[in-house]
């Protein structure tokens, strides 16, 4: 039995007073305080981050974290583009499968706003192939190719996409840690300038700083005495080609489908039992594809279903991205996967306050790397 017993995150946003180091320091001590643990009780740390090496020539973070905590425990850095956080969490569960009675800290952090949009766009493009970079394709460009194909094939318009941001900004307005807490209108989203046609500024998750951390454990005593505790029922990973043009289809993320199928099978949970989910909405099209590829909606129906707003808080059986998703809560790349798990943890332990989903017993997180090269799906439950 592997349980999440505590969660802490910084605000996500433009945190110019903070360096990567200070963000990491804040969440380590923040989550230890939440869990009422001392540093000495930690057996290992897993750290998710994508761009510190590319943007600020900052690697060997394991040793840098050692300097923060003053202990010599094993520390593992994990990178899988935007799935770095989810992957760090996944590997932490594998560590606990192999080592009993242990307490692990999993954290994700990213510092992005010290640099110009062009520099960050170039750094993010490291998660795409050489051919894609040579073509001048950016991240938004890759998802724009997917979006344009999807809209054409299933006969939807940019308006269908806008409902994702509309919903997620409503959720973000209820989350004091979200990067953006303003509500949006469909009209405002459709009027925002293009980043890569047909995706506009308000279809795209922002450039954010932030960090998030969890305490993960299989220590029976800690689980028993923790005020809040949720079990990891499954965590599965699948991968796909780096090149978008080498994938089998352009209107699905196969890695999501495979990881999702494995996760539901392992957890022995049915899709209709999931009441709350955090999915990877790096761009509006990504949430629509996620809902289809995770098996909640039929392929091609996403554009129609999102307009119904059935996945908005208070509206029905499955609330998606109550944190505000990547779009409104922000997307400090390495921190996102951990924040997603943390949000489900808060929801399942009734700590989500204004954005509380009622009576949720099972939750799901979905974290994607790049244009779909990696997918991590995790199911949590009481």
């Amino acid at each position, binding site marked *: 039995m592997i349980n999440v017993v505590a969660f802490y995150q910084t605000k996500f946003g433009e945190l110019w007073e903070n360096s990567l180091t200070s963000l990491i320091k804040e969440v380590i001590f923040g989550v230890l305080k939440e869990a009422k643990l001392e540093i000495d009780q930690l057996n290992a740390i897993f750290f998710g981050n994508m761009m510190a090496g590319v943007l600020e020539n900052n690697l060997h973070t394991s040793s840098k974290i050692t300097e923060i905590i003053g202990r010599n425990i094993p520390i593992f850095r994990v990178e899988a583009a935007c799935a770095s956080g989810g992957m760090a969490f996944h590997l932490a569960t594998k560590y606990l499968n192999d080592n009993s009675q242990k307490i692990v800290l999993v954290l994700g952090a990213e510092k992005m706003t010290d640099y110009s949009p062009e520099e960050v*766009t170039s750094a993010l493009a490291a998660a795409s192939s050489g051919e894609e970079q040579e073509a*001048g394709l950016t991240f938004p460009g890759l998802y724009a*190719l997917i979006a344009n194909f999807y809209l054409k094939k299933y006969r939807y318009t940019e308006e269908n996409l806008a409902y994702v941001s509309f919903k997620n900004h409503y959720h973000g307005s209820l989350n004091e840690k979200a990067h953006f807490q303003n509500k949006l209108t469909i009209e405002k989203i459709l009027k925002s300038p293009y980043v890569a046609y047909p995706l506009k500024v308000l279809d795209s998750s922002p450039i954010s700083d932030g960090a998030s951390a969890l305490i993960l454990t299989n220590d029976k005593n800690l689980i028993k005495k923790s005020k809040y505790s949720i079990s990891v029922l499954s965590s599965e990973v699948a991968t796909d080609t780096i090149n978008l043009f080498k994938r089998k289809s352009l209107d699905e993320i196969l890695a999501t489908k495979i990881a999702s199928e494995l996760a539901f099978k392992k957890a022995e949970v049915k899709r209709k039992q999931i009441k709350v989910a955090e999915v990877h909405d790096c761009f509006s099209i990504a949430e629509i594809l996620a809902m289809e590829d995770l098996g909640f909606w039929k392929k091609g129906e996403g554009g129609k279903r999102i307009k119904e707003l059935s996945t908005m808080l208070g509206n029905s059986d499955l609330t998606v991205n109550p944190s505000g998703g990547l779009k409104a809560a922000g997307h400090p790349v390495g921190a996102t996967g951990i924040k997603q798990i943390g949000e489900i943890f808060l929801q399942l332990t009734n700590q989500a306050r204004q954005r509380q989903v009622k009576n949720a017993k099972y939750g799901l997180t979905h974290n994607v790397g790049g244009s779909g090269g990696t997918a991590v799906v995790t199911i949590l439950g009481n």
Partner: protein
Amino acid sequence: MVSPVKIWRRQKEKKLILGKVGKIISWTKIYITPKDFKNSSPYPVILVELENKKKFVGQLVDYDEQNLKFGQKVKAVLRKTRNVNSEDVISYGIKFKPI
């Protein structure tokens, strides 16, 4: 700047695609560019299915707006890709033009 050795090494792959004909499977127009492509924004990038069923991506060049559509026939050509400094080796790569 891309290493001249890398540019030299990649030439062999480009030969395999040059001159091939295909059709547009999907397209986009990039408005916010990476730093090496700043001067040409906005530019269209297309995903092409070639005659041999293989797919590839590249910018669309020498085009009218009406060519930027699904199914448009295109041909792979050799063009300059990134912006480089005056002393760097010039980076050539695959782009596509409508036919």
